[in-house]
């Protein structure tokens, strides 16, 4: 795994916000700006989607990102691709080593399948996504929620075709940083999942920073 550190100083960031677990965040990031997600307490999955600010129908595509880099995991150097074949953002620094884009977001309905029918009533990432876009009145709807990135989440795949949600490889203070290659809208759910180790069974806040 490649570890690339950043030279950017948080004191010079133009935006600095701590997002509690279970909360959404919908925010524009301009072309050329650098966006950092900092895992404050470790092993916190950050479910993330990106849309072109100019055209929300152009959005992050997990499959296009995977097939163009020929690799399942995201790390420093990964280009986050849209379905139109354009680079939305490039990961320029990463002290965690790898991030998932297969596992998707938790949802009330998928929790009922994965754990128990009555787990449907636990808070989920998709509820956070829907709450954010429901309030924002920005034209986004459920149709626009596709496969997302799970920063700091560890989803190993085996050669014989198994996939698991494993204990995290992140730790307090690890971060991932990306440069916006076009004006984008970021939609984040700081994951509230309590039924698997993606948040070490203890969802915690993350810090979001932007530099010009």
């Amino acid at each position: 795994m490649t570890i690339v550190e950043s030279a950017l100083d948080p004191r010079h960031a133009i935006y600095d916000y701590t997002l509690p677990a279970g909360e959404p965040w919908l925010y524009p990031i301009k072309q050329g700006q650098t966006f950092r997600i900092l895992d404050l307490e470790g092993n916190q999955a950050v479910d993330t989607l990106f849309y072109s600010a100019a055209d929300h129908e152009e959005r992050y595509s997990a499959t296009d990102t995977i097939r163009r880099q020929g690799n399942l995991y995201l790390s420093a150097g990964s280009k986050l691709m849209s379905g139109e074949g354009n680079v939305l953002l490039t990961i320029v620094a990463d002290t965690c080593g790898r991030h998932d884009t297969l596992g998707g977001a938790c949802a009330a309905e998928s929790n009922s399948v994965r754990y128990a029918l009555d787990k449907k009533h636990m808070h989920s990432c998709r509820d956070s996504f829907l709450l954010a876009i429901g309030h924002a009145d920005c034209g986004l709807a459920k149709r626009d929620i596709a496969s997302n990135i799970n920063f700091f989440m560890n989803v190993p795949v085996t050669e014989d075709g198994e996939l698991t949600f494993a204990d995290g490889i992140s730790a307090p203070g690890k971060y991932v940083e990306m440069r916006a290659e076009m004006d984008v809208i970021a939609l984040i759910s700081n994951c509230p999942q309590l039924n698997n180790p993606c948040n070490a069974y203890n969802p915690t806040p993350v810090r979001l920073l932007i530099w010009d």
Partner: protein
Amino acid sequence: MTLPAIDSQRVLWSESLPAGGHDSFRMRRGNRLRLTDLEGGANLAALFVNYDEKTERYNMADTLKAQHTFHLTTGFVCYSDMGRVLCSITADTLGWHDTVCGMSDAALVRVKYGAASYQSHHNAMYRNSRDSLLIELEKWGLGKRDLVANVNFFSKVVAEEDGKLNFQSGHSPAGSQVELRFEMDTLVLLSACPHPLDPNPQYSAKPLLLEAYRGDPPTADDVCRNFRPENSRGFINTERYYL
């Protein structure tokens, strides 16, 4: 290996899908769709949508994580984003179908295979799955927003420990078959273009046979329903939707 012949009394329709072709149709709940790779080496990109509520659609992530799998074969089911089962894989002669690598697009086909437009090649033009599925989605009032991660039937891609992907050439011999049982009234959208990671430098789309037939309803000991406890709950969610 081939599946037992379908009782002719039960056949609803049978059509071939030409190499590079695309199609879409409704499959009613309970009916089966058998897919056959006629010549070997086919790839069939597929999307599934709830026919009655088209914002409910196949969800790659939920399908993978609910069944702890990176591949699809007999026993696995295709989950929607609403915790329901759109269709089940009831039989398969191959053991592996991809659902992670997405679809080809116009730029990929042009760079990899060169230009073969309608003007120069007529219906032998090089099609791509993204445009083909977009055409089919638009026929039903859907569009780009509904282009999500698809299944690539008949294709196998394995991942090394560091995540590097390797396409397995020659995975699907002629006559390979996979069979789906629809658990919901489903809009099926298909494109028979090469897999995006197929290293073959020639554009080698292949034809398929599609056979729809009336099957028996799932029994209590059904292989897909009992494959994992998650699937039993997925079937309960699906049955409740139709009560």
